[in-house]
């Protein structure tokens, strides 16, 4: 398991990188964390003629928080996001979810924006982006576009990033007041891909009762699935949410596939169970924050 040869490029500015990507087109790949690309290349399932290493580009590694939310740069590592206190304060779900991404050693190198661009339907951060209504900014030579999750996640392992484009930033909107979030997941081994994972956002009304509730799921479809379950729990007391109906709603919505670790039916069952758990926890957190 050794990679094929390639030409290595190490731009130091975004412009340089975009020019390179434009010239190379579909013959090259961007190397940031490389936690997926490198084993792919070692297995010789990937043999790009060019690698563009973006790790030395200034200004791509940052994590900024402002009134709107959290902006994560292209080379910011999962570990940076996990340990960023301001980001946690603004968008608690980021830390709640990223802790489930593989193991710390992988999070030390792997990038959050990269995992979004990878668009693995089992990647926690895809559901976080979709659930929170975040966006990804794509730059190409002489142009830029900003896509919401719906447009960005095209299919399993397919994002909208095109040839010559570089995903430079992911934006996660700040959690609303009186809202709470939670992440629930079942994986075979600690740190493995989720058999099913669910993120939940619950927002309370002035009356401290559930006003709105949504869940985002991974590993149950070709792209992250978001289900609005407000109708199922609206008006309930935040401290004692009866989330079973919401869970059933989720089960009826998702259409998972089977793999060697779990049947489709078990995944569907987990989707409901975990959604209920995540909603209950999120509601409790919302009520704490509202207090």
């Amino acid at each position: 398991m050794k990679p094929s040869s390639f030409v290595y490029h190490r731009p130091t500015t975004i412009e340089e990188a975009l020019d390179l990507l434009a010239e190379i087109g579909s013959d090259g790949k961007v190397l940031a964390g490389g936690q997926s690309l490198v084993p792919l290349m070692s297995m010789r399932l990937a043999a790009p003629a060019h690698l563009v290493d973006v790790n030395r580009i200034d200004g791509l590694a940052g994590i900024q928080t402002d009134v709107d939310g959290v902006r994560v740069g292209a080379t910011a590592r999962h570990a940076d996001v996990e340990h960023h206190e301001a980001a946690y304060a603004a968008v608690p779900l980021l830390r709640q979810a990223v802790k489930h991404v593989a193991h710390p050693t992988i999070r030390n190198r792997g990038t959050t924006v990269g995992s979004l661009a990878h668009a693995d339907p089992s990647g926690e951060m895809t559901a976080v982006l979709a659930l929170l209504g975040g966006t990804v900014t794509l730059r190409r030579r002489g142009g830029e576009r900003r896509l919401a999750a719906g447009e960005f996640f095209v299919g399993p392992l397919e994002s909208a990033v095109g040839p010559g484009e570089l995903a430079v930033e992911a934006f996660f909107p700040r959690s609303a007041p009186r809202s709470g979030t939670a992440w629930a997941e079942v994986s075979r081994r600690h740190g493995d891909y989720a058999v099913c994972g669910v993120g939940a956002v619950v927002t309370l009304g002035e009356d401290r009762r559930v006003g709105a509730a949504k869940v985002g799921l991974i590993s149950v479809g070709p792209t992250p699935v978001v289900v609005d379950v407000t109708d199922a729990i609206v008006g309930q007391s935040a401290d004692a949410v009866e989330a079973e109906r919401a869970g059933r709603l989720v089960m009826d919505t998702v259409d998972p596939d089977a793999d060697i670790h779990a049947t489709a039916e078990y995944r569907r069952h987990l989707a409901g169970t975990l959604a209920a758990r995540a909603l209950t926890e999120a509601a409790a957190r919302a009520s704490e924050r509202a207090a």
Partner: protein
Amino acid sequence: MKVTGSAVLHAPRERVWSALQDPAVLVRTIPGCQQLEQVGPDTYRATVLAGVASIKGTYSGDVRLTDQAEPDSFVLHASGAGAPGTVNADVRVTLADADGGATQLDYDADAVVGGVIGGVGQRMIVGVAKKTAGEFFAAVDDVLTGREERILREPSVATGTAPEVFTAPSRQRAPMSAAEMSSAAITGALIALAGVVLGWLITRRAQGRPR
């Protein structure tokens, strides 16, 4: 690996047949199909550019037809081999009249995915194969319903690239998913090839038939 699916083509069966007779249409509607040449009776060699992102590869695919029951069904035996692995698929394709003058196309594929790909990933292969095949039939439908321009402007998903895809750290299992994409795309393309061969088949028969 079993892949079954169906597509409703919004045209009467005659127009579906005739559209499928036009290799020019087929080659540009089949994800990744670069060329198709006849190398013997009911036997063809196809070159398919399949895969996603980094793991796109050119596969030489051999295609053989059996059990032809014109105009209802036939079985396509297709095999593709490339560096990342091998795919052998038996695809049964059936056509039937559907409501509103449309045509119902059903395919039922049994594919063997071998080599490295076979060993490192099955997680999403069925879904992706369905997706790729679905794109083919959607593209054909676009032709039939005059929406071809749209599909021609957009890159085929099976061959679409996403430079950042592999910066993703999300999990150790990520590479296998990508691997699955490749094999799935091949399978999808092979399924799609059924349409091509069907088209050629009909062309040959049509030529031999007095009008």
